[in-house]
């Protein structure tokens, strides 16, 4: 990344929590290398305390974000895509280095990821129309079901797809008004930490997305057991860890999105993130609220029409 005689400027990667960029409170970092073992950067190794701080930030942001209009949330998500487009080359470099992809394959992954933000940006004001409904109850009642965000969602990002996979699990969570605490891919956290910088400049309110890097199991355990976390996406957990976390999540009946099938080597999620998504990642973190109200009996005598 440096030209002939110029010494490059390395980047200090930091967490993204509550709209700020802290180092881990533990003071720990760990070495992140590329697919050939070359040192790329020192990433913060978040602690359980960082995870809890992130939950506090996500809870604080939930009221404002879930209360924003769907139109507003859609524009904010679209703004993320705009910012990503401007930083496309940076992400292509980071993804190529992190995942060991050729430049063209990394570029394809980044382009798909940007398009995915755009796709989810368009869902914010439509999900209520397709997953809610007016219920024709047998009686004089107005009866309406609407989806609402579940709350604070812990997201274990895919381990292998460091950016496209990451975007594919974050965007649906926040599109519907939830706030997220994201645990980045343990081995390839750099694109996630850079995404934090994009979110910070995209009108996404601080705390809506919080990004932690470190050892997935170490961070996932306190999140799965946390009484103020409402849901957990286990995508980045292997089968054994996912089972352990699902058991912990039962303690306050968190909504659980189980991981897809494992890779042949047992690693988590063999999902093809380049495939077109459906709505299940949106609906997994929604509650349905049904409101009843009497309608009275105007025209009951037969004169209504």
């Amino acid at each position, binding site marked *: 990344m440096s030209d002939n005689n110029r010494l490059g400027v390395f980047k200090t990667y930091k967490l993204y929590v509550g709209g700020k960029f802290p180092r881990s409170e533990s003071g720990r970092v760990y070495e992140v290398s590329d697919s050939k073992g070359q040192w790329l950067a020192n990433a913060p190794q978040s602690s359980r305390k960082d995870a809890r701080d992130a939950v506090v930030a996500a809870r604080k942001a939930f009221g404002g974000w879930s209360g924003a209009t769907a139109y507003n949330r859609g524009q904010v998500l679209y703004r993320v895509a705009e910012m990503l487009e401007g930083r496309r080359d940076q992400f292509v470099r980071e993804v190529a280095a992190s995942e060991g992809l050729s430049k063209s394959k990394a570029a394809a992954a980044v382009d798909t990821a940007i398009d995915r933000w755009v796709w989810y940006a368009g869902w914010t004001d439509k999900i209520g129309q*397709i*997953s809610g*409904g007016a*219920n*024709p*109850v*047998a*009686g004089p*009642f107005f*009866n309406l*079901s609407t989806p609402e965000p*579940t709350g604070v969602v812990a997201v274990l990002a895919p381990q292998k797809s460091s950016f496209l996979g990451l975007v594919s699990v974050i965007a649906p969570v926040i599109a519907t008004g939830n706030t997220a605490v994201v645990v980045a891919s343990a081995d390839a956290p750099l694109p996630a930490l850079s995404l934090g910088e994009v979110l910070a400049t995209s009108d996404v309110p601080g705390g809506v997305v919080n990004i932690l890097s470190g050892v997935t199991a170490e961070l996932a355990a306190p999140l799965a057991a946390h009484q103020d976390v*409402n849901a957990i996406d286990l995508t980045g957990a292997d*089968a054994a860890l*996912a*089972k*352990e976390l*699902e*058991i912990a*999540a*039962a*303690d*306050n*009946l968190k*909504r659980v999105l189980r991981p897809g099938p494992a890779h042949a080597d047992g690693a988590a999620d063999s999902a093809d993130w380049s495939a077109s998504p*459906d709505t*299940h990642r949106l609906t997994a973190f929604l*509650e*349905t*609220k*049904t*409101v*009843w*109200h*009497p309608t009275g009996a105007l025209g009951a005598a037969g004169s209504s029409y």
Partner: protein
Amino acid sequence: MASAFEYAPAPESRAVVDIAPSYGLFIDGEFAEAADGKVFKTLSPSSEEVLSEVARAGAADVDRAVKAARKAFEKWSALPGSERAKYLFRIARIIQERSRELAVLETLDNGKPIKETRDADLPLVAAHFFYYAGWADKLDHAGYGANPRPLGVAGQVIPWNFPLLMLAWKIAPALATGNTVVLKPAETTPLSALFFADICRQAGLPKGVVNILTGYGDAGEALVTHPDVNKVAFTGSTAVGKAIARSVAGTDKKVTLELGGKGANIVFDDAPIDQAVEGIVTGIFFNQGQVCCAGSRLLIQESVQDEVLDALKRRLSTLRLGDPLDKNTDIGAINSAEQLARITSLVETGEAEGAERWSAPCELPSSGYWFAPTLFTNVTQAHTVARDEIFGPVLSVLSFRTPDEAVAKANNSQYGLSAGIWTEKGSRILAVANKLRAGVVWANTFNKFDPTSPFGGYKESGYGREGGRHGLEAYLDVR
């Protein structure tokens, strides 16, 4: 009340129902004894009279029933939806034809007033089968993608508060979507499920599609943990719901849980007081308060607190408690001695913690399990009676000053199943309904149900929805 207002007894006849002295388990279309021959008795909670003796299922019976359901699944799921629909329509019609018999049976076995089984439970049971019958051949249009597939064998465990209605909520969508079921009714109310087995026979339902296992919690546990069960549906306590959520961890089983609640019923100062009082009564004293979505926390705006409480106490004094088969009875028996003990103990805790108890003046029958409609005032949010689900005719009254305070107090609960709002101001209804973290919000009404309307909770009230289009998802492979 003055004697001029006494009612003559108006009992519904027991002759319409013929309860056999003993029943077996319903597996693969046949009634059979439990493998180990165990039985238990079911009582009438209003008289403690033994109604019948039923087989007590064990793990071996669960295994046999799951095998029967698995075998039946192949053909049942392959049946055109239009054919499955016709079976469900038949069941709905037979339930209507036999509704008087079933209402009396349910009242005898459960202890709830005939007025409720006749006018609420049974019509809703039939309506659920009608509603889901119509979905069976329209699943491609339900919004879960083209050609959504059933999951397989559904293991279903239901509670004793609405035995036949909970059966309908579970079985109707399961069958409509092409699943087969093994259902375990509660140990204190096994009879209506066994009568339902006979309805399946009359409808000509293929063997093994519906299996009924009467038994205790051990049978329920064996059922939900059975490795060949693909879908678990449970309605009951939050503690058991959490145990089930743990037990399915790491499996492919899909789960829906309908658990406890501590519903807030919020009365604003501009509410129509008389209607609100009726709604409060419906909210907490319907089915002796043994309702998961009961409005058990009454939040009254301070300026009308005295007026509402006076009217409420006056109204409660007119409720008639007694023989559940009497058509004029409002308050029936508590379902079991165990439940009565739990209610009594929580009420004692309430008194010990300093809340002020008031119980409606009524004479309790000398046999059976009874508890007079009761309310607590001087309740704070920290009190046990404001936090724990009592599942009985006990109301905790709190007050508030501003809408924000009402919302904060209403949401201050581990539960999030139901809530009520009473006000004449439309914008306030919408604003408050929007902020309540509860799956069902009744505004200027309470405890209304309909098969087209999704029902289920936020937070520790469980996950998934039953009823309506949403209720189909629980039984379809939509991930």
